[in-house]
């Protein structure tokens, strides 16, 4: 992540007091990965069956879709916005894809091109919702959180209305392949993560998005095309949500209009836990990966300990709140 390479100058070690040490630990992007590993070590002792290959697989399976959608969220957060519509995009694209391929009178049921068309349809729907969000934020200057909230209600309402609140099942195996086969979903998640991080750190678009999140006025005065870059961030988030929907729909073997309805906080939370800032300008896909890992580990281990749904929710909420506090603290420090 360090770029460009330092010309032989190392960090000066003056005033290396304990506080500076603590400071650096809390500022570090690697904090969450370290925490995840420590947490996994503790839980492998405490929780029966935690340290098994089977459970490890479960953790990975649970992580992959969350990873994909949180990667999209990372882009939007870096641009200084937020996308609260992702869960509804997952639901909407899930039923859109399922409606195309389902063997229960789907549009292209049994057709050999059904699966590619369905996947394409999902991506287009996700991109369209993202385009709407981004357009409202960039061109109409509406506050991101309220725009994406409205989209969230609308998109989930649309999904429920279109299906009359019924799930769509009997999906062909080719369509469920990406979700069902661990290697396939893993490949997709890795491709998304690598692609997005490359975009963020190695292209003009990435530095534009980062600059907009850091200081939109500076970005504008430096010739960054602020509006298109902002729209693009939201479009990518929509597409990532659609890809996640593809994995989830495959895993669950149904397209449902309430798919992932209650996972919004996990998505934003995982991103923030990783260290991506709610104030914009700061973030990394690897950090998000570590946030997703920690959150999934907590969820999984507490489930193994047979704690109630509510307790798990409180625990996750607490961790997310802590992350938000840490983020606010970093931001205030930065502004001093």
């Amino acid at each position: 992540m360090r770029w460009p390479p330092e010309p032989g100058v190392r960090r000066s070690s003056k005033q290396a007091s304990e506080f500076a040490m603590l400071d650096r630990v809390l500022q570090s992007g690697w904090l969450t990965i370290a925490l995840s590993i420590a947490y996994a070590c503790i839980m492998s002792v405490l929780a029966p069956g935690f340290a098994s290959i089977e459970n490890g697989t479960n953790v990975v399976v649970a992580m992959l879709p969350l990873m994909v959608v949180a990667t999209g969220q990372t882009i939007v957060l870096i641009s200084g916005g937020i996308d609260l519509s992702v869960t509804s995009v997952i639901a909407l694209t899930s039923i859109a894809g399922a409606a195309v391929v389902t063997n229960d009178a789907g549009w292209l049921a049994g057709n050999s091109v059904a699966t590619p068309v369905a996947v394409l349809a999902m991506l287009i729907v996700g991109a369209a919702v993202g385009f709407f969000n981004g357009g409202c934020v960039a061109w109409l200057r509406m506050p991101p959180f309220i725009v994406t909230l409205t989209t969230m209600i609308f998109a989930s309402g649309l999904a429920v209305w279109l299906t009359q609140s019924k799930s769509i099942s009997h999906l062909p195996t080719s369509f469920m392949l990406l979700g069902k086969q661990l290697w396939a979903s893993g490949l997709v998640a890795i491709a998304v993560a690598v692609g997005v991080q490359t975009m963020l750190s190695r292209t003009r678009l990435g530095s534009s998005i980062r600059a907009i999140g850091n200081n939109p006025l500076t970005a504008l005065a430096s010739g960054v095309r602020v509006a298109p870059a902002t729209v693009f961030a939201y479009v990518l988030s929509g597409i990532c949500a659609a890809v996640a929907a593809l994995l989830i729909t495959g895993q669950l073997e149904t397209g449902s209009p309430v798919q992932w309805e209650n996972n919004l906080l996990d998505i934003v939370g995982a991103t923030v836990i990783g260290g991506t800032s709610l104030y914009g300008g700061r973030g990394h896909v690897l950090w998000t990966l570590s946030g997703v890992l920690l959150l999934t580990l907590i969820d999984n281990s507490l489930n193994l300990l047979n704690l109630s749904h509510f307790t798990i929710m409180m625990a996750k909420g607490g961790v997310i709140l802590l992350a938000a506090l840490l983020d606010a603290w970093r931001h205030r420090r930065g502004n001093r």
Partner: protein
Amino acid sequence: MNSTLLEMTGIRKSFYGVDVLKDVELRMQAGQTLGLVGENGAGKSTLMNIIGGNLRADAGQMQLAGELYVPHTPRDAQRAGVAFIHQELNLFANLSIAENIFLTSFPRTKLRNIDYNDMHQRADALLEQVGLRLSPRLLVENLSAGERQLVEIAKALRLAPRLMILDEPTTSLTSRETAKLFELLVSLQSNGMGLLYISHALGDVKRLCDEVLVLRDGAVVGQGPMCDFEPNQLVSMMVGRESSDQFPPRHNHPSKVKQLDVQHVTQPGVVRDISFVLNGGEVLGISGLMGSGRTELARILFGLDPMKSGHITMCGEPIERLPTAGRIARGMAMLTESRREDGLCMQASIAENMSLVAEPKYARPPWGLLRKAALTSALHAMRNAVKLSASTEWHRPVQTLSGGNQQKVVLAKWLLNQPKVLILDEPTRGIDVGAKFEIYALIDRLASDGQSILIISSEIEELLGICDRILVMSQGEIKDELARNEFDQSRIMLAALQADHVAASLRDADQ
């Protein structure tokens, strides 16, 4: 009446190692109006902020009416009887006049609700005192700038202060409003209040003040009864600094190639009929007081603010319809007035900030992947060119750098794009002497290479030291133009100041 109201001795203050105030002595009587004059950056505001409790002096003592006076907060100052009326008014447009006056001390009835009758009566009395015949129920958003200024004074009068500091109170007022304000100030003064009056408008100072104190570079260069000073004498005291070896020698020879041609640029309420030509290899200065429209002009030229009519041509190509990004792509660059606001991404690293503008040149189609190696070597080269201190790491957030190094990062960011026309707005603000010299040298070198430079500055010597030609702006218009052989500090200062009176008389004619 002739008791000492405020006495300051040995006041010193420095920011980031730059001395802003050097052993300032100040003494004023009750019932007296003391005018405080000096160029931008002479230390006037710092001195006033120390009296008003916003800043604390590094050394020195203050006595208010014979007692030791050590304000820690603006509130302390208020309690001690010092009212500070800032140039930027702090009024809430969505509240009424009376509510603004009594915001932190509403009169209440027994039910703990606001006693509107009492409040409006008291507000009425205060408004009458400042000569404002308006209902105290009126929302502040409906008031003119002058009326708001008077409301701010009424707010200060609520606490019956002994000393009132006014910072440039007339900049946004019409001449009629100014006259009204002066009447008020004279009556306050005759009631025994001390007034500290800061202004660039020397005519106003002459008219209002009994005594005057001149600051230059943070030191007092003259204090005495107003009648002892002629305006021209004040001007030369304000600017009279020997410009010895602060500036590197200039070796440029402007060509006759029109790099930037500005014709009749007008934006209502901001600038009017601005026309000038910037030649290749030329360093053109724009002088003017704060609020003269110089920064606004630069933002219009750069496409950041709208323009109603006029033409801007760069290297033969009309650019007035292009957005900022388009102008940058064609070779324009602008170092903005405030690094924090729109100059830098303060939390981002040096490398990120430096590469922001020039990146499109290093993007490889079709995906826009950056040629990192090429960009990195360009960054290293540019870093040496602007002499960014070697000890600073690439990955440090720019907010941890000194002002001088921050400014070098901004310059480097623009120079990487190899601009043809470079607009610099206050390029040396908040920078120490050494870094200043390096920036001047850089400007000279760029001009020698044929780049055109438009430089805006509050410091006249700076313009005298590095420019080939200077335009003087006031009230959104160009008032004077000086070629290098006509350079004269007093003429520039007078053009910038006198214009106020011309405009004021024009406004009177309108009314």
